[in-house]
C-alpha cells in the first residue's frame, strides 16, 4: 500500500496518508484531481469496488469531508479518499458514470447534507424525506431533539435519566 501511495502522491498531489490498520488507508485528495485519481485507481490498480461514499460535517472547521471508500478485493486493501468541500457552498463532482451506484449515494448526500452534485441522475428528487422544508438534517447545526419537540406531540410522563447525573446521585447521595 505504501508503494502505491508513494507512486500516486506526486502525480495527484495527495496529502499525508493515515495507515489506520493493515488493509485500510486514508488519504486526502484535491477536488480537481479526484476524477482522474478514481479512474486510475479503478482501471490500473484494481480498486474496482466503491464501498461507500459519505460525508462528515466538520462544523467547527467550516468544511465538509467527502469520503470515497474503494476496495481492492484481490489485494484485500481498502483506500479511503478524503475530499474537503467548503461548507458555505458545498459542491461535489458526480461520479455516477464511473460507478452507477454512486448516484444513490449522491442523492442521499444532496438531501441529508445539502451537498450539490450537478449532473447526477435524479439527484434533486426526494430520496428518504418527504415534504421536508427545514435544513438538511444530517448537518451538525440541525438539532434533532429540538426539531422533534417543536414538531411532534409528546406523551407526558416520560422520565429521562441522564446517566452522569444518575450515577453521581447514586454514588454520592449527599452531593
Amino acid at each position: 500500500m505504501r508503494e502505491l501511495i508513494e507512486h500516486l502522491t506526486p502525480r495527484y498531489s495527495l496529502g499525508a496518508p493515515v495507515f489506520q490498520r493493515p488493509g485500510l488507508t486514508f488519504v486526502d485528495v484535491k477536488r480537481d484531481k479526484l476524477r482522474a485519481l478514481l479512474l486510475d485507481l479503478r482501471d490500473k490498480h484494481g480498486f474496482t469496488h466503491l464501498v461507500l461514499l459519505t460525508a462528515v460535517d466538520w462544523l467547527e472547521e467550516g468544511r465538509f469531508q467527502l469520503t470515497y471508500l474503494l476496495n481492492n478485493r484481490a489485494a484485500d486493501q481498502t483506500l479511503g479518499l478524503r475530499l474537503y468541500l467548503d461548507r458555505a457552498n458545498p459542491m461535489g463532482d458526480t461520479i455516477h458514470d464511473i460507478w452507477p451506484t454512486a448516484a444513490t449515494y449522491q442523492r442521499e448526500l444532496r438531501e441529508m447534507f445539502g451537498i450539490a452534485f450537478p449532473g447526477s441522475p435524479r439527484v434533486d428528487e426526494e430520496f428518504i424525506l418527504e415534504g421536508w422544508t427545514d435544513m438538511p438534517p444530517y448537518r451538525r447545526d440541525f438539532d434533532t431533539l429540538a426539531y422533534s419537540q417543536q414538531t411532534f406531540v409528546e406523551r407526558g410522563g416520560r422520565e429521562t435519566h441522564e446517566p452522569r447525573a444518575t450515577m453521581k446521585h447514586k454514588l454520592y447521595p449527599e452531593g
Partner: protein
Amino acid sequence: MKDIDKSFKKDTETDFPLREEMRPRKVTTPDGQVIDIDPLQDYFCQEPPKVHRKSYSAIVEGFYNWARANSLWILGFGTGCGAIEMRPLMTPRFDAYRYGIQWRPTPRQSNLLVISGYLSVKTLKRAIRAYEQMPQPKYVVGLGSCTINGGMYWDSYNTIKKLDEYLPVDLYIAGCMPRPEALLAGLMDLKKLIRKGEAEGANRYAENFDWYKANQKSVIKDWDMPDYSW
C-alpha cells in the same frame, strides 16, 4: 446524551412547494377530448367519513360484535420493525389462524390495522390512507413502545411520538419489541373490547375528524399520493 440546542428553531416559514404534477392543468385524452384536471381535487377525499350507528337491536349488535371479534382480518402492512414478529404469529409456533386472525393484502378487506412499530412521517401518510380505506368498523393496534411515546426514537426528527394523535388507537402492546405471545394476548384483549362493543375507533375518528386532520397536517406537508391503495 447531548444537551438540547435551545437556540435551534424549526423553520416554519417555508411552505412545501406544489409539485409540477400536482398543479391544475389541461390534458388531451387519447380520443382527442380536452379535460381539466386538478389533481388535488381528485386525490383528496373531500368527504369526511360518516359516523355509523350501531344496530337498533342489542341482540343483533351483540351477534355482529361476536362475528367481528372472531374474524379479525389484519392488513398486511409492516410499518416498522415490529413486522418481523408478525410473521412468527402466522406460522406454526404461534398460529394466530386458530383465533380467526388472518392476513389480508388489501385495506378494503381488512378490519385491523396493526401499526407495527415506529411510524416515520412518510409511512404515517400511507398508514392514514390505508386506514381511511378500510371499511367500518375498523380497529388500530399500536405495537411497540415507539408507538406509545416514541420509545427508542424519542428524539428522532422523522418519527411520530404519539400515535393516538393521528389515528384512533384501540389498544397498545408495549415492548421493544413485543414477543408473539404478547401480541396474541393483546389481540385477545382486543377481541374482548370488540365483544363489549367498545372498539368504536372508526366513529371516534369520524366525530373528531377535523382534530385528527389538523394533527396529521401539522406533520405531513406533502400530500401527494396515488388515489388507490398500495
